[in-house]
């Protein structure tokens, strides 16, 4: 996925000279995850630049650049360090177009490497999506495959709205095919990635591959699971989810983030409203515990794995 993102950013920089990349250590180093590697050498330090070490400053100045007609793509180094920029994102970036009554739009993309499974230290493994999904004016997306990463980053940059682009760190290194010539699913569409008839499993980012593992095991036990990759966390594309639940009658939503007031809670509530008479069991959530992200040696217990998903599938099937 790192290479796919790099290629996607390269394409976006080549397509539109208003596109800028900015963030901490993204220039000569190419970012701590090397997502921007080689881009400064190729496009110059005016288009791809290192900022001072200040997240509010990064997002705040990106807003000013966007007001001036640029399309800045900010890298936040790690999920847990987005909070110094929280104010700029939620009170300014999200609201300024509305405040200006549409006089200008703010096509800012904020790339956030997020999530666990990399054995890192505190503040380097979190899933802060829900804070931003709660805020009107922002769009949130998260790719789960290199193919989506390549295309979605370009679409996010083309979007006239601010887009929070959540990159699942644990998926940075696994390889996958990218169809560079092909077309892609629209940015805000969810996608059925595995067909099934007994239960619908929904997740985003790194959890999609966990669902796929769970679905394979369930299949061996004679349970047919349909897997949906959300792709877009705000707005959520409910069409394919509701359609699937209408067919299967069961829904399990999985996420790395804590469960309380989370994306999973929201999806559970909405699908219950929209597909109540199709449901054969309550919608179940599988999530991290409601604790601070634990030390790396314990993260395996916190983050839902295929077994935890299967436990929920079994519960759903038991109704």
């Amino acid at each position, binding site marked *: 996925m790192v290479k796919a993102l790099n290629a996607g950013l390269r394409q976006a920089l080549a397509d539109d000279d208003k596109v800028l990349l900015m963030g901490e250590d993204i220039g000569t180093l190419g970012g701590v995850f090397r997502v921007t590697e080689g881009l400064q050498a190729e496009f110059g330090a005016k288009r791809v630049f290192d900022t001072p070490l200040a997240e509010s400053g990064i997002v705040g100045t990106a807003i000013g650049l966007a007001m001036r007609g640029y399309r800045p793509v900010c890298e936040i180094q790690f999920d847990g360090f987005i909070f110094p920029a929280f104010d700029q994102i939620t009170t300014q970036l999200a609201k300024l177009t*509305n405040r200006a009554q549409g006089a200008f739009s703010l096509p800012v993309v904020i790339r956030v490497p997020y999530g666990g499974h990399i054995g890192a230290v505190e503040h380097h493994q979190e899933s802060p999506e829900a804070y931003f999904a709660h805020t009107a004016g922002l769009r949130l997306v998260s790719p789960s495959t290199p193919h989506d990463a390549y295309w979605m980053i370009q679409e996010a940059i083309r979007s006239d709205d601010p887009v929070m682009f959540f990159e699942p760190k644990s998926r940075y290194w696994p390889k996958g095919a990218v169809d560079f010539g092909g077309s892609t699913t629209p940015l805000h569409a969810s996608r059925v990635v595995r067909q099934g008839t007994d239960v619908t499993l929904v997740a985003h980012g790194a959890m999609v591959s966990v669902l796929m593992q769970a679905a394979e095991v369930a299949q061996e036990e004679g349970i047919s699971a349909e897997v949906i990759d959300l792709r877009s966390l705000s707005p959520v594309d409910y069409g394919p989810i509701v359609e699937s639940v209408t067919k299967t009658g069961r829904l399990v939503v999985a996420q790395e983030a804590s469960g309380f007031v989370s994306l999973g809670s929201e999806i559970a509530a909405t699908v219950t409203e929209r597909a109540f008479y199709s449901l054969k069991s309550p919608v179940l959530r599988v999530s991290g515990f409601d604790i601070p992200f634990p030390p790396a040696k314990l993260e395996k217990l916190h983050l839902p794995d295929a077994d935890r998903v299967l436990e929920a599938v079994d519960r759903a099937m038991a109704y």
Partner: protein
Amino acid sequence: MSDTTPTVQFLSLEGELRPTDAAEEFADRLAELTDDDLRSMYRSMQLARHFDAEASNLQRQGQLALWIPSHGQEAAQVGSAMAARAQDHIFPAYREHVVALVRGVDLYEVLRLLRGETHGGWDPTDPANGNVHGYTLVIGAHSLHAVGYAQGLQLDGVVGTGDLERDAAVLCYFGDGATSQGDVSEALVFAASSQAPTVFFVQNNQWAISVPVRVQSPVPLALRPTGFGIPGVRIDGNDPLASYAVTRSFLDDAREARGPRFIEALTYRLGAHTSSDDPTKYRDPEEYAYWVARDPIVRFEKHLRLLGEGDAFFTDVVAEAEEFADRMRRRILTAGSPDPATMFDHVYAEPHPVMTEQKLWLERYEASYAEGVQ
């Protein structure tokens, strides 16, 4: 007030031209001001003062949700605003009504904002509004937008080309309290780091609501920027000529790619912080009296009289200012409420399913009442 920081001041309390040592360096700039400019300065201050008084009344009468007075800070604002060239961009905080007036914004939009009709007011992209961007209520947040915008000017190649009429800069206003905000420090860091053409203009009106400036900054604010690598100067903020000369000079420095600049305008908020505030709870009456004696409008009138301006001019301006305030009052009294459907507009730039659904839902819901519930 007892510190010895050099202060740029041209006008004595009696309105005579008596530049301080610190002012000499900027004195050339005054030559750019015509007699008409001086009259226009005075006129803007009076219009704003009357508008401000009217708006305070409107708030008390329940016509505005809140009022943020500019009373007392007219000189700092009028001088700096007149110093900006047409192509410069202004990032105000929320008290810069005089700046807005000078740059062409219809102050009716400020009233609508504080009446609770909009969150935005004027269109900052419409040239009629003099590149004045929207007010920002989150203290200091806009200082970063200003720097980002200034970086955009650099990228656009309209900085340092040597054409003073084309090269642009950004003028960013905030208060003494705002200097405590992390965003303002980050703005100084980013501006210095990128040498973005930004002039930070602090109106040190001595109070951040009830907290005096010494709590925000034990050192004079004018010394703050030095540590960031940005030259700073203190001016007498109640002297419009000082405000003009230094801002003009610093904006030209910025546009000529000499880097960001910082101005501390020492002034005073004569009224309340906002209409919800009660300054008698925290303010010493003697301090207030000291500053009443330094009223910028009174001082500038003395100056103009020394230059030979007669009664007729002042009478005319006051009449015009009264008429201006009265017209604002009449306009706001007949203002309606915004169309409810507009709540869902411009939340996103591109179509958004949730906005569409909720807008339709509200329409149907309202209609169900209009038709009578079955």
